[in-house]
């Protein structure tokens, strides 16, 4: 590559105008001129795609939302008995069905029974199955794209015990409004803020696409992940 312009130099020429050295090289080098022309054609093609415009709208929507005045306090779909309830985590698997392989899971337990439906005032417990992964964080997103970090309370994803259904913390009380509960897994600690950011983007994208955040696709940056929707009746 040393006889020709690098990808970086070509991209500079194609966008900001190149350095005098790059322009001099282009004047003498037919292969680099052809590569530059191919880059420019790709840019034009990309600008004509539907995805190009859709992503712009999603970015504009996300940043507009970030720039808006903070709407707190907002109605949260799930109110956690924070503080003491989450200060100490009980990481003991229940049941005998320890599973170390397969897809990770997240569940909401009424007692020891998984559920996807609840009423305001019900008390549910979060549970995950790491499928061999050692760390996790769990989030809830409501229909208005409000995100709550359910677990852990710290800045990084936290260690989970092996098992197919590992309870996280104490039961919490359900309030009105459906939510989707999403767990992200990994093999080492990751910043929760990074995962939160990816989920907020995905939620904003869902809104921009005219769908509900309750049905958002899981962004690849939080994979491996699992989700469960909780329908909250009256």
């Amino acid at each position, binding site marked *: 590559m040393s006889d020709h312009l690098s*990808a970086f*130099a070509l*991209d500079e020429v194609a966008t900001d105008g190149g350095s005098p050295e790059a322009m001099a090289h282009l004047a003498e080098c037919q292969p680099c001129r052809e590569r530059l022309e191919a*880059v420019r054609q790709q840019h034009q093609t990309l600008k004509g795609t539907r995805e190009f415009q859709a*992503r712009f709208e999603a*970015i*504009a929507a*996300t940043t507009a939302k970030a*720039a808006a005045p903070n709407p707190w306090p907002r109605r949260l779909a799930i109110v956690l008995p924070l503080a003491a309830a989450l200060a100490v985590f009980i990481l003991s698997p229940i049941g005998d069905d320890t599973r170390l392989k397969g897809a990770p899971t997240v569940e909401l337990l009424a007692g020891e029974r998984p559920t996807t439906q609840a009423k305001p005032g019900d008390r549910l417990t979060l549970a995950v199955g790491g499928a061999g992964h050692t760390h996790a964080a769990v989030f809830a997103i409501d229909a208005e794209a409000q995100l709550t970090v359910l677990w852990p309370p710290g800045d990084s994803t936290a260690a989970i015990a092996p098992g197919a259904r590992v309870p996280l913390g104490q039961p919490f009380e359900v309030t009105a409004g459906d939510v989707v509960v999403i767990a992200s897994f990994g093999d080492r600690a990751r910043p929760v803020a990074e995962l939160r950011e990816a989920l907020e983007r995905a939620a904003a994208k869902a809104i921009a696409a005219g769908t509900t955040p309750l049905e958002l696709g899981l962004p690849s940056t939080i994979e491996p992940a699992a989700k469960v929707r909780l329908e909250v009746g009256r």
Partner: protein
Amino acid sequence: MAGAGLSREELKRLYERYAPVVFRRARTLLGRDADAWDAVQEVFEKMLSAHDSFRGEAQPMTWIYRITTNVALNMLRARKVREPVLTVVDDEPSVGVGSVEARDLLRKWIDSLTEREQQVATLLFLDGLTQEEIADVLGLSRKTIGRELAELREKAASLGAVPRGDP
């Protein structure tokens, strides 16, 4: 306002100018259009949240390369667990012969290299950047980059092979 003190029109101008570059770079590393578009969105959101530092760059393309490389490598690391086999993209005109081989090796090495080494390896083996360009993109001195490149080549050799595109 589109956020970060930018009007929608200003955001649009930045997007029209740089999004195609971000997309192509991300796709070269990630191998799939959908993931590359996710990277575009993430890079622009970072650009807006760090708009002052972006505007402070003498060469905006250095910022674009640095952040896009970081975002794509993060995505690659996150994805590696679930998708060991990736689609090959071979229609990127800005990278040279051997880029596919270089990308495959980078993916293979991703667990063996530090984050800095991954950045340098991407810029060196995949993009074919010069030592000076790598120093500019990563905001480091040429002396530091020279030392890190020597260490990286040694480590790459110990891992198996050095890509043919090694400048």
